[in-house]
């Protein structure tokens, strides 16, 4: 994984609450046996009509959304399924961070393992971003801050070990494998 320190991009805003994993990547795209190319299925039922034609009124189909890598979404993003296909689809589409006021537990864990920053902000700061689609945001992982349209910044929490892994481009499995002795000792105890 590429180390992540700073993400700078215009934002795209989907203000809906409870954007569930079936919207992020519908079940029919889960039949793959690898991770590649899932971006084409991201938000598929919102992006395309029944004939596969782009819906012009959906934000991701509008010119101003092209190239945006930061998604600002309504409360409780990523609820539902454990499918890691959700962050695979979002990162393959081009997103590098999702900002909400609450992010579902399993989605957040999955996002962190795929270089997709799950950022939870206080409602007041989040509201400023929702009100300013296309804002050129700067996310700094080291200081755990995002810039806001009013010139201010907002802090966000992130689990310390996940942050370390993201900033250094390492994955958690290496750490777990290095704990083989402790695991073996536990197994012999029980």
């Amino acid at each position, binding site marked *: 994984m590429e180390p992540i320190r700073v993400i700078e991009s215009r934002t795209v805003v989907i*203000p*809906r*609450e*409870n954007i*569930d994993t*079936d*919207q992020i990547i*519908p*079940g*029919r795209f*889960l*039949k*793959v*046996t*690898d*991770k590649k190319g899932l971006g084409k299925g991201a938000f598929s*039922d919102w992006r395309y009509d*029944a004939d596969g034609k782009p819906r012009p009124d959906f934000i991701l189909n509008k010119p101003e959304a092209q190239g945006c890598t930061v998604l600002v979404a*309504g*409360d*409780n993003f990523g*609820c*539902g*399924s*454990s*499918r*890691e296909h959700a962050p695979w689809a979002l990162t393959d589409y081009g997103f590098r961070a999702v900002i909400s006021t*609450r992010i*579902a*537990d*399993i989605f957040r*864990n*999955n996002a962190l*393992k*795929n270089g997709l920053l799950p950022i939870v902000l206080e409602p007041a700061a989040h509201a400023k971003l929702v009100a300013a689609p296309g804002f050129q945001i700067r996310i700094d992982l080291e200081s755990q801050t995002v810039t806001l349209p009013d010139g201010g910044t907002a802090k966000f929490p992130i*689990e*310390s*070990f996940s942050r*370390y892994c993201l900033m250094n481009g390492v*994955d*958690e*499995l290496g*750490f*777990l*494998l290095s*704990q*083989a002795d*402790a*695991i073996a000792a*536990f*197994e012999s105890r*029980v």
Partner: protein
Amino acid sequence: MADSTKQPRTLFEKVWDAHVVKAETPDTPAILYVDLHLMHEVTSPQAFSMLRERGLKVRRLDRTLATTDHSTPTLPRLPDGRYPWFDAQNEAQVAQIEKNAKEFGVELHGLGDPQQGVVHVFGPEMGATQPGMTVVCGDSHTATHGAFGALAFGIGTSEVGHVLATQCLLQRKPKSLAIRVDGQLQPGVTAKDLILAIIAQIGVGGGTGHVMEFIGPAVRALTMEGRMTLCNMAIEGGARAGLIAPDDTTFQWLAGKPRVPKGAAWDAAVAKWRQLPTDDGAKFDREVRIDVSKLEPMITFGTNPSQGIPVTGIVPDPVGEKDPAARATLESALKYMALAPGKPILGQKVDVVFVGSCTNGRIEDLREAAKVMKGRKVKTRTLVVAGSHAVKKAAEAEGLDAVFREAGAEWREPGCSMCLAMNGDMLQPGQYCVSTSNRNFEGRQGPGGRTLLASPATAAAAAVSGAVADPRRLTEGK
């Protein structure tokens, strides 16, 4: 019996503490040991690929158990012995787990195996899920296994890889949430109605960051099937895990299952399991109370599982919603569902009924549905899909299959089927389906499909009425 020298602990804390390989620090999460790793074909292939890329093997084959359920067809084998796959991708995905299981030595109960079934029906039937265990699976409905007093939660595919390679996960300890259920369920009101009412109260994100423990007399009175239904949908309230303390109901259900201890080892296990329930005086981080004495059968009208109302209720009007975000959520749900606010949900036309899934695909669920359908004809397309071959066999031994067939319902082979429509069992755009599954998200049962979640009895009532109906009116005197 709580050890009087120790702080009183919750069931969750006891199971958590017993599985900490290394305690968490500010810099690192806890290393949590996994007793049972269940697998299926959808969320495992990339994890096996990772093992291959890194030259790793499965650390504990004896703690790993797989089945196939999501992509499998629910129509019987063709005369030439082949399976009627919906498409080549489904077939390839199932072939992939068969190949991976063989190569890595994982015990797989796949298509053609008498134990095959929906992973959360299959695990308990095997006796693999036991009280006090940690259970994970690349599937959010792993919460189901909490019905046995196991700490059970869904994980992503990267974590499936972690567990395959190390039998461990890196986890921060979640908070605890007690759901205290007071009163007793009225006749005709089921565990499904109870969990839909709980989620309607706390919201779909209400349990985020928490493990739920369901407590109170109405929970104690539930059968294991009912408890599994309850815990199954903890995730729909945002909680990764739901828990119910094990008791005699649990032990009686488990006794004699293939993987549980036998003889003196069984007695020792039961004695140990009796220590698991939450101690008197143990503290939860949060507590929510719900009184169910007046609860009615529930049904959802919207596009998330918290949008539920009594089956005798009216579809809410967004005008009454003060919070703008909540109003927008409600408006968008009603638009997608094409339901008018302020109208009763009773009588709403239904096109398809689905009875099955890890939520309600067990023998007791099929009995509930059969009780309503017996001697009646369905007025909608109706799929009845047993959760496993064991359930199917038991249902056939009781003659339930004949009840469904005579009513005009389709009696299918086990699998996830129309819960998530991966295998071709799906709605047409615009169709309304009363479904015993767990998610009514937009397009979940097929693009444009409209899902109303309910209990097996309410689903069966819809099937024989061709519209949303109150099952209590159809089972009086039965």
